[in-house]
Every structure is written in C-alpha cells, then in structure tokens.
C-alpha cells in the first residue's frame, strides 16, 4: 500500500541532490525535443497547431513526479520546442506556452492537493485500475485542463493575427482532440516507470524537491 500523504504541496521537502539537478535539466531537454517533434513530425492542422503533440503526456507525468519542474518543462518545452525551434516568433511562442503551463500547474495542484486526500495516487499509477482515478484523469487532465490550454493557445493565435477569428472553435477543437489522444499514453508511462523513479529516490515529495 502506497503512502500518498508524503506527496504534498509543500515548497521543499529536503535538498535537491546533484542527480536530481541534472535530471530536471534533462527532462526539460526531452520535453523540448518531443514538443519540436510534435510540431514537425505530425500533420499541421492549423497555423501553429500540430495535431499530435507528443510532449503533452510526458510533461504531465513529469509534473506528477517532479512537481514544479514538470510544470517548467511544459512551459520551456512549448516555448522553445514547439515555438522557437519551429520558427514561431518570440512573442507568440511565449504567449501560447502559457497554454501548456496552466494545465500542468492545475494538474499538479489537484493531484497533490485534493486527489491524494481522497485516495487517488498523486503519481498517476492507479488510473488503469481505479475508477475514481480514471474519472479524474479523463475529467481533469484530458478534459478541463486540456480545454483551458486549447482555448487559450488558439485565442493567442487569433489575437496575434495568425488564425482568423471565425476559425477559433475549429482550431481549438483540433488542438483539444489531438492532445486528448496523445494523453492516453500518460497512465501507461506512469505505471511502467514510476516504480523505477521511486526506487532511485528521484520523486519530488514537495513542489521543488
């Protein structure tokens, strides 16, 4: 039986070791790489909108494991990988990266705050075997937070003149559906790898350590 109460919203829970320090940097690099692949190696369905954004399930799992470092990887990954490295300008990249930062942050807050108290694994290991965990994953991660991210991201593109206002709902729908499809990976990833990450003592029990 896992003790979920050890994963909290406390700022720090011990010192950051050198291994954790390198891990946080490397996971950001991985999210940058996958964000870039998500845009260049999948069908572009609209200006700045790749259909299968592979980085999404990764930064969700990294957020479960490493708290705010996962949130940071969501933001930097989108800003550099899906933004600058694909040729998107500075301001649009910065603005639409918020569309990844906010969902990751909301996922962190709910899982570490409320869900662990009602018996849902804050590291997402039980999504495939616990109905309550499955409901929250579909409702919160694939649903609400993903919708917020999609609506924000496409609104930024409309605001900056890249997407016509009339195409707002279609663009948002494609963004949200694409992200929901790739998010299917997250529970499998968490179930397969969380025990290894735990064994190495690399899970952040607080927000940053």
């Amino acid at each position, binding site marked *: 039986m896992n003790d979920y109460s050890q994963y909290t919203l406390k700022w720090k829970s011990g010192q950051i070791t050198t291994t954790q320090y390198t891990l946080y940097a*490397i996971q950001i690099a991985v999210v940058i790489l996958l964000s870039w692949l998500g845009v260049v190696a999948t069908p572009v369905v609209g200006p700045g909108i790749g259909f299968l954004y592979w980085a999404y399930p990764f930064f969700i799992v990294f957020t479960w494991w490493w708290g705010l470092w996962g949130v940071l990887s969501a933001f930097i990954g989108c800003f550099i990988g899906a933004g600058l490295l694909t040729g998107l300008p500075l301001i649009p990249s910065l603005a639409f990266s918020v569309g990844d930062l906010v969902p990751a942050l909301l996922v962190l807050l709910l899982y570490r705050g409320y869900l662990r108290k009602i018996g849902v694994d804050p590291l997402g290991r039980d999504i495939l075997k616990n109905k309550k965990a499955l409901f929250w994953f579909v409702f919160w991660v694939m649903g609400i937070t993903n919708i917020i991210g999609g609506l924000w991201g496409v609104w930024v593109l409309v605001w900056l003149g890249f997407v016509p206002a009339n195409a707002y709902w279609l663009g948002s729908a494609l963004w949200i559906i694409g992200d929901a499809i790739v998010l*299917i990976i997250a529970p*499998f990833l968490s179930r397969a790898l969380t025990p290894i990450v735990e064994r190495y003592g690399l899970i952040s029990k607080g927000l940053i350590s």
Partner: protein
Amino acid sequence: MNKRENRMGEKRYVKTILFNAKADSFFVNLHPFTKFAIFLFLSIAVIIAMTKPYPDLLFSFFIMIAVVYFLIESRTIKYLVKSYLVLIIIALFVLLIWWLVFNQVGVHVIISFSIFGAVLKITKESLYIGLAKVFGYGAMALLTLLILMTTRDIEIVNALNQLGISFKKTFFISLIFRSLNIMAEDLESIRHAQFARGGKTNKKNPFLKAKEFLALSVPITALMIKRAVEMGQALEARGFSKAGKLSQPVVKKNIGLLDYSFLTISILLLYISITMNITQVLGGVQWLNLL
C-alpha cells in the same frame, strides 16, 4: 589546412544552437543581448504590420528579404532549405488556406465555389489579407531561425553569466542545451533499434500512432533517468556541489558598434511599423485592381 579553418588556423564555421554558421558573419558576431532585442523589436513590428485593419504586406516582405540576405551571408540558408523549407512552406500554405476559408470578406470576387452546401468565395481583399499574413508569418519564422542558427549555446550561458546569474542556474541552462543533442541521438537509436525489430508501421490512425509512440516513450524516459544518474555521479565526482563560481567564459563578447547599428535599425523599423503603412503609402490599395 583543415577545410573548416582559414589560413590563420581560425575556425571558418562555428557550431550554433541549430547547425553551423560562418564565424565572421554579421549575425554570428552580434552580442546575444542585441540579438534578443532585435528579435523582440522586429517580432512586435511585424505583428503590428500584420494585424492592422489594412495589413502592411510590403513591410513584412521587406523584413523577409532582409532576413534572407542575412541567412545567405551567414551561410545558414543551406540548412534552412534542407531541414525547414518544406515545413515552412506547408505551414504558410495552411495559413493561407485558413485565411481564405475563414475570412470571407470583400466584394471583388475572384472565384466562388460550393463545398458541402456552403458557398466559399475568394475575393481580392481576402487574398490580399491572406498573403499579408503569409509574408508576416514567414518573415518572423525566418528571423527566428536566423537567430537560432547564428547563436552558440555557450554565448547564451556567458550572457547570463554577465547578467550576474548564479553559477548553478547558468550551468542548469547549459545542461539543457547540451542534453538536447544527446537525447535526440538516444531517441534516434531507440527508433532504429525498434525498426530493426520490425517496429516501423507508418500507421495513419492517430490512436494507433499514439500506441506506437508508447513503445518509444518508455525506453526514452528510462534512458533519460539513466543519463541523469550517470551525469549526476560524474558531476559529484568533480566536486560539483562544492563549486562556488563559473570558470572564465570561453567566448567573451562585448557590445560594440555593430550591435548599436543593428539595434538602431530595428528600433527605427518598429517606429515605422507603428506610425505608417508602407503598402498604403506606396499605393498598395490600387494594386488590388491589378489582380
């Protein structure tokens, strides 16, 4: 004499964030702060030009031509053509289609057709707006790639160091940049290993594609953790946690005349974009009648 060196033994090309660039080109020798400022000012200028009620197509076109010149001058255009041209063309084409389909404005109809019962018309006005968006987006995309292809990761680290940011933070950023190539190579190795075992299927169904990606995602994450543990141990063996400050930068740059010149030009372009519409000044409205 090495082909990549001149007669003095100096490097002709330097490794940058994306690919290589000519060592003595204008953009390579600009200070990272200057590049950042140019990037910011010109991005704002083009966005203003694109979002005007009557978009300033000529302004964006001018910026695009200038950026292409610097891509040629820094010898980075070949990498852009090889790795990004198709991507950019597709993105620009999709952008144009979206603007033609979802921006049904104007009265001067060029062509009109019906799709699923809905009548779509392409007018001179909607075509002009679509093209203005294409040139604006294209100019910004090329500018971003120019900056990335002429900037070295070490320069960014040194610039942050110059700002007085602590050693651990600057080293963290340099680790991110250095890990990018390592992880890209790891990802490629895993893919090749899976192809060798018959893993490549080229499925079109997005659900099957997601399932296929799952096979890739577990090894890449496991490898990432392994790399971090190895790197952490190597750093610790070199006394990382006891290290006080960063060693002297390898490449030290100061802001010079070239930087001030580029900064002045970009501020001037931003001012022009805010205060006037070059296309209208040059009679662009009348050009629509030529279509």
